[in-house]
């Protein structure tokens, strides 16, 4: 999938003959599987258990008792509704923007540059270049480039897009901007791996049959690139919905842009309210699983990996 483009070589061409595996398969898969069982599945189950706990009768801070307290879910839903709406709203907007920015770029690199593999490789390296430099520093760079006394904000003031007393950093738009920027490579890579394999003869056939460019795109290119769009949107939407760094007050956000992750961190690390943090995490995970199941039904897990 997406990360094959990281330098793993030619696009996957499955010419393997599957053998019946005996004990060798167990040797190969058991260590990894046990590891994931211990440190991926168990933590999720432990979150679920903690999400049902109640405060300890002794009243000690950070002490809780397990008692099937489903009320925690109702509490976090009502208490954190603005953050839940914001997280999914931001994730939706940033995913749409990332797709709109990435698609033409991936099309250009994957289809138009086929004749010049060297430039193609170079541009691909530039697309993944942001991975090699701390995303926190890149986000701080944007914060300073778009700060209250930057030329960008002066321009917005002059064009009367922003009122003279308001600024860009700390707004919903700034957070969506940062999220879009940070996750563009996660969208471009899967789109590229898909479009790279697009057979242009289909496009030629369609235009030979008098389809205009717009129709060729709508009827041929877009449907054929659906698998790329699906894995790209998953790879961006999920991490964005759980991110809280861009929205943090010290980065592009303010106290008015807190997301689900902000609240999980505060409840877990500062307030020691483990049941609340866990219930909120479980809720986020459940909402995302519903979305993923919907996608997986359409494309199959084999394609996603």
């Amino acid at each position, binding site marked *: *999938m*997406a*990360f094959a483009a990281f*330098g*793993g*070589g030619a696009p996957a*061409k499955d*010419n*393997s003959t*599957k*053998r*019946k*595996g005996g004990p060798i398969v167990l*040797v*190969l*898969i058991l260590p*990894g*599987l046990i*590891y*994931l069982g211990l440190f991926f599945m168990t*933590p*999720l189950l432990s*979150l679920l258990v*903690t999400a049902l706990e109640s405060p300890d009768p002794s009243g000690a801070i950070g002490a809780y008792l397990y008692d099937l307290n489903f009320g925690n879910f109702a509490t976090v839903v009502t208490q954190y509704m603005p953050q839940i709406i914001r997280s999914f709203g931001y994730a939706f907007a940033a995913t749409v923007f990332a797709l709109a*920015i990435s698609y033409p770029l991936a*099309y*250009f*690199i994957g289809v*138009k540059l086929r004749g010049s593999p*060297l430039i193609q*490789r170079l541009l691909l*390296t530039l697309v993944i*270049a*942001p991975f090699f*430099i*701390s*995303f*926190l*520093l*890149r986000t*701080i*760079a944007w914060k300073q480039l778009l700060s209250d006394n930057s030329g960008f904000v002066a321009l917005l003031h002059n064009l009367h897009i922003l009122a003279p007393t308001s600024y860009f950093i700390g707004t919903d738009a700034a957070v969506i901007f940062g999220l879009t*920027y940070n996750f563009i490579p996660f969208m471009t890579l899967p789109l590229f791996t898909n479009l790279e394999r697009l057979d242009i003869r289909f496009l030629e056939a369609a235009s030979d049959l008098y389809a205009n460019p717009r129709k060729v795109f709508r009827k041929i290119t877009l449907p054929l690139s659906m698998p790329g769009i699906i894995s790209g949107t998953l*790879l961006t939407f*999920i991490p964005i*919905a*759980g*991110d*809280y*760094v861009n929205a943090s007050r010290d*980065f592009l956000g303010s106290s008015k842009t807190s997301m689900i*992750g902000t609240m999980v*961190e505060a409840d877990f690390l500062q307030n020691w309210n*483990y049941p609340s*943090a*866990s219930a909120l*995490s479980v809720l986020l995970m459940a909402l995302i*699983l519903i979305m*993923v199941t919907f996608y997986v039904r359409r494309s199959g897990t084999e394609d996603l*990996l």
Partner: protein
Amino acid sequence: MKKLSFGKLALPIYAVLAMVFLLTPIAYTIMFSFNDSTRSNTVWEGFTLRHWAQVCNRQDVCDAVTNSIVIGVISTIFATILGTALAIALVRYSFRARSLVSLSLFLPMATPEVVLGAGLAGLFFNAGVGAGMTTIIIAHVMFCLSFVVVTVKARVQTLDPTLEEAGADLYANPRQVFRKITLPLLMPGIISAALLSFALSFDDFIITYFNSGSVTTFPKYIYVAAARGVPAEANVIASAVFMLAIFIVLATQIRGAIKRSKLAKS
């Protein structure tokens, strides 16, 4: 006619603009590693090499980077070994638990970092394990594993099984076939998986923050410092890592291109 030529230029111009957008904050970060600033590194105050020459004057930055490198190397070794084994099994063998294995590898990638971080932290807390280097490494191996499998799997799929069969026909035992044929052929995939794993580990903030206790990694250092201003020394480290990584990627690509053109000639 005019419309046609515009259509031809539109995509390349767009691509250049998109690249500028992607690379602007990188250029900014590198530029400000040369900023002659003393306290906060927000305003340009002139060019200096001071921060590059004396990075470890900021002991806290250097300690954080050392921690991040140690964590990155150890997690990468474990994740690469576990992940390569899984990738080989998934491509080469048919077994009943296949879809279960695929699903349990996909799920960690589909889980937001806060959930992974909070879940592990809760587990360690309940088990009475104090947060520190070990808990960070355990967490990093977990989230790097799936990415290693994806990367190595792509390479295993391009591998021609008849090469291994030829080895076996020439009386190599399975162990020799694996060591002399399979492993060398998989190496490019394994190396890129290891690089990806190191990059993910080195840059991870959210999961680390939940499981780090008093240990400071490079991203955690930046996050904490962001409130009062990140010193230019952090930019120096990030720029150096960036240049090294880009050099490695470009070198691998150029080597690959030379190899391909040689093959094409012969």
